[in-house]
């Protein structure tokens, strides 16, 4: 992949963010269930179908109706603690959770948005199974705020409250599994205007919004509690909606990759136009080519034929070579076609001539296939081994996508991968299908209530940063990191209840935690109480601050363990002065020649050798004190001689 240096303003990049953050309320948005997830086997399962509702215009969402026609069923999993009849769509919703509305209004007032007089809960049609009802309950609570991102004012168009969706657990054939523990957890939704013009700006805006959310101290933390959707378009490209970016750090990468993708698609379009590709030439002529593969060495095809499936092929006129064009790192046009084929045809995968011979398919079979399909050297052939119905749906989707490639970039909804690339999710839904949730009465927001909220707004992030620097002596970088971490409250609690240096606490909670996460430790397993206990033990001299990374990584791997157990198991308990002296004596004894060579200049080397043995078990200043004393004694002895 050629690394492109892109002038984003020249290509007309426009992006908008939609941030969804779980609120830390006592109950869910429309019932009294615990807003928590469960890991155990489900206690309750039930099977449902969702039928697209017809609108007054006689229209139904084509993607939704397609899924219905394919007989897609949804298997829901639930636990008694985290779901009641409301989440199961077996009981009407209860009243809108006022705590959630209050948090959202607090955020609204912090960014100078205008709360609405009367909040109306709406039903937004979502038919993929992630909502048992077939719609998401959502409401707008305030409009027209703004945030400051390094001097640029970014308008916040919308602040809303909505229910989180069920978690997708997997797919087997036509059955999709969802777990409804997450369904109904209150989310705040914050949408910016599409006035973000570079990947960096997108990330900064996301960070600024994240800071304000955390400043309320009433949002959930940990992976999966915040999700960003990003709308991106470039000039001549198309509006793409990217769903479910789980980490702020990924935002700029997602934008970069999407720009790359759209630019690559435009290049493909130009290449196709140059060789005279025509939409009409890409035909839906799906051909049974099973006979070519009767003796194939391809395991996938053999396996499919054993199940009485057949091989079906379609020609993509003038596409030869283009299917291997890379759109983003690791994603070629061929992979896009495969994702689309999977969505529409539920097929496992597709083969295309740009990647063959491979997978046990021989050059001879490819030649035969091309001849059979009357494919010229400029044409590509795509084929799939499946039932006639699935293969037809899959290959029709492939030809449709190929025709769109001749025109440029199609509008679509994509899902974010953990590395910042994205994958096809579904076509963009038609006009928002929203209608009132008549089971939940509107709630009125009075001026008195708002002035009460205004009087006790939380500290704004900038003020808090200044205070952290002043009160705890943190430098600006650490103070900012604390604000941007999920541990600002914990930092203050630990700094107040122990005499451990605030800088040590701040570094542990930001840099150390980040490093551990990067190494793959599940830091969200560590509880606040464990972290506070750790600092108390450091404070009382039972362990050393040098042991922090080891203790935290051990705790991340041992759920519900105590810090004392960590210290004990890691052998990190402080050693006694006596033991320390013995160790120091031994080290000096083993390296006597050093003293003779360097005299008092040997201190540094000795310090290093000793710390290697006692790191985490003795405070460095203790070691230094004892070592100094001993060296002095020894040297004076030497001199005396």
């Amino acid at each position, binding site marked *: 992949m050629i690394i492109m240096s892109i002038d984003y303003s020249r290509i007309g990049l426009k992006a908008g963010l939609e941030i969804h953050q779980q609120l830390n309320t006592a109950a869910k948005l429309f019932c009294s269930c615990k807003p928590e997830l469960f890991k155990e086997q489900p206690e309750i399962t039930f099977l449902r179908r969702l*039928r697209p509702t*017809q*609108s007054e215009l006689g229209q139904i969402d084509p993607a939704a109706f397609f899924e219905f026609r394919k007989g897609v069923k949804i298997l829901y999993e639930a636990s008694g603690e985290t779901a009641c009849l409301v989440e199961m*769509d077996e009981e009407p919703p209860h009243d809108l959770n006022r705590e959630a509305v209050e948090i959202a209004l607090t955020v609204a007032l912090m960014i100078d948005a205008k709360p609405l*007089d009367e909040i109306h809960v709406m039903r937004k049609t979502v038919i993929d199974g992630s909502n048992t009802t077939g719609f998401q309950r959502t409401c*707008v609570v305030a*409009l027209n705020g703004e945030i400051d991102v390094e001097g640029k004012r970014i308008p916040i168009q919308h602040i809303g409250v909505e229910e989180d969706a069920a978690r997708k657990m997997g797919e087997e054939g036509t059955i999709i599994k969802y777990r409804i523990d997450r369904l109904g957890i209150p989310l705040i939704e914050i949408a910016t205007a599409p006035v973000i013009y570079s990947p960096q700006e997108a990330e900064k805006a996301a960070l600024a919004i994240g800071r304000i959310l955390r400043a309320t101290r009433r949002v959930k933390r940990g992976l999966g509690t915040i999700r960003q959707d990003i709308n991106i378009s470039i000039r001549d490209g198309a509006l793409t909606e990217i769903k479910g970016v789980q980490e702020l750090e990924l935002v700029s990468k997602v934008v970069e990759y999407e720009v790359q993708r759209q630019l690559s698609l435009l290049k493909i379009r130009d290449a196709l136009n140059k060789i005279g590709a025509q939409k009409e030439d890409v035909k839906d002529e799906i051909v049974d080519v099973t006979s070519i593969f009767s003796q194939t060495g391809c395991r996938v095809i053999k396996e499919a034929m054993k199940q009485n499936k057949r091989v079906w092929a379609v020609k993509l006129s003038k596409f030869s070579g283009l299917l291997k064009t890379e759109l983003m790192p690791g994603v070629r046009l061929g992979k896009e076609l495969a994702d689309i084929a999977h969505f529409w045809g539920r097929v496992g995968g597709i083969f295309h001539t740009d990647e063959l011979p491979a997978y046990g398919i021989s050059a001879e079979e490819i030649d035969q296939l091309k001849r059979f399909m009357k494919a010229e050297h400029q044409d590509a052939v795509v084929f799939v081994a499946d039932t006639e119905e699935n293969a037809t749906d899959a290959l029709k989707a492939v030809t449709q996508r190929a025709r769109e490639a001749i025109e440029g970039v199609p509008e679509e909804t994509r899902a974010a991968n953990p590395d910042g690339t994205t994958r096809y999710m579904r076509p963009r839904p038609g006009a928002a299908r929203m209608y009132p949730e008549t089971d939940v009465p*509107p709630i*009125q927001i009075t001026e008195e209530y708002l002035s009460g909220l205004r009087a006790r707004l939380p500290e704004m992030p900038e003020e808090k940063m200044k205070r952290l620097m002043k009160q705890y002596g943190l430098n600006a970088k650490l103070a900012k990191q604390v604000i941007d971490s999920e541990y600002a409250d914990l930092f203050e609690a630990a700094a107040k209840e122990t005499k451990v240096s605030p800088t040590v606490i701040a570094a542990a909670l930001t840099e150390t935690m980040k490093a551990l996460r990067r190494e793959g430790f599940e830091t969200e397993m560590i509880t606040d109480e464990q972290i506070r206990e750790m600092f108390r033990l450091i404070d009382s001299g039972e362990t050393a601050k040098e042991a922090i990374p080891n203790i935290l990584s051990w705790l991340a791997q041992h759920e519900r363990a105590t810090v004392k157990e960590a210290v004990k198991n890691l052998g990190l308990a402080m050693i006694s002065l006596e033991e320390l002296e013995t160790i120091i004596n031994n080290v000096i004894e083993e390296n006597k020649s050093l003293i003779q060579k360097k005299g008092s200049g040997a201190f540094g080397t000795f310090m290093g050798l000793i710390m290697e043995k006692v790191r985490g078990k003795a405070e460095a200043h203790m070691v230094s004190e004892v070592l100094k004393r001993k060296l002095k004694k020894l040297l004076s002895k030497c001199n005396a001689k």
Partner: protein
Amino acid sequence: MIEEFPGYKGTALQALKKAGAEIGDIIRIVKNGITYEGLLIPRSEYGDDKHIVIKLKSGYNVGIRITSTTSIEKVGAGVKPAFVPPPLPKQKPDLPKVAIISTGGTIASRVDYRTGGVRPALSASDLYSVVPELSEIAIIDAEILFSIFSEDMTPKHWPEIAKAVAKHIENGASGVVVAHGTDTMAYTSAALSFALQSLPVPVILVGSQRSADRPSSDAATNLTGAVAAAARAPFAEVVLAMHGTISDKSIVFHRGTKVRKCHTSRRDAFKSVNAKPLAEMENEKITMLTEDYRRRNHARKLILKPNFEDKVALVKFHPGLNPKIIEWYVHEGYKGIIIEGSGLGHVGKYCLPPIREAIESNVVVAMTSQCIWGRVNMKVYDSGRDLLEIGVIPLEDMLPETALAKLMWIFGQTKNVEEAKKLLLTNIAYEISPRTTAESGAE
């Protein structure tokens, strides 16, 4: 409230009239320097008179409070969307004919996303377009008989329904589906079980527990199940078709006299009580759950007995029941009283004198149990024996609601009290089962 402005009154209504805006128009509201623009939306009747609801461009509805400084301006006329029905599925001429009689409640509907209105789909073509699978099952003949909530259904409506069903059967329907709100559907199913005797084909009552406008509604599944049973089930009885569980898996056909709504909201709210369900449908296959049923026979001649007497009461005994209530019914000329007694069929001693007086005044008094599951037996305790002695009729394992509908029907057929008593204990539509098995016990 004015029809053109549903839900609006007082201040808000005046402001709208002044602006000359109608529902569906685009209006601009300026308040405290903030501008809101959107479609004017109807307001809930229970809302106050100080807010106007608009639908923003984003699709969200919001309410704006009208104050003395708020300005409202109409900036665009509403465009009423023209409904373009999707092409109707092709009718298959060799399919059985099934009649669907709507009495209210919406078994199918479409949503007006513009104003949020939900419109019921009632005609045959509406039903086909909303639930296209129906065209694979039967040729539908749809009739709108009433449009009322099921709680507004009275014994005066039952003869109308019975006559409509009979008409369709006489016209050659292979089965009749009655779409009904769920609250009183079991009363209607019991009533029809007595009014439609010697049925040649099935009569299926059907409803939904989750509104038809939502994608998760049970309405379409219940309806297709009901139509399938009407078209080809082997039985010829009045049944009630609803979900068997909370999954969209099986449709259960409960006998009309043995079914009760046992949950306020669940899809599987209806349960057969003191009986097993008659049949079940899963994956389009109908399975009979008993051998004892009336077979479908298109040659059999239907006997229609559609009359009901509404002067029959259902009285639930409870600690401290005022016995004067019974006196009041007698005084009002009621012909029968069904008591929902405690346990095996008891009432407090203090209720005995008015009950005795009622019976002496030729009022039929009969006993059922408020336990819901089980059979009355008034020979075990003195209080039961006392009631028997004064002439209260024990109704075995008959459901209180079924007993009420039955006695109403009986007095629609005869004025003779002795004959009424005899009919009450005659098993007409499987309402009495001589034995209760463990399987038909409470869940």
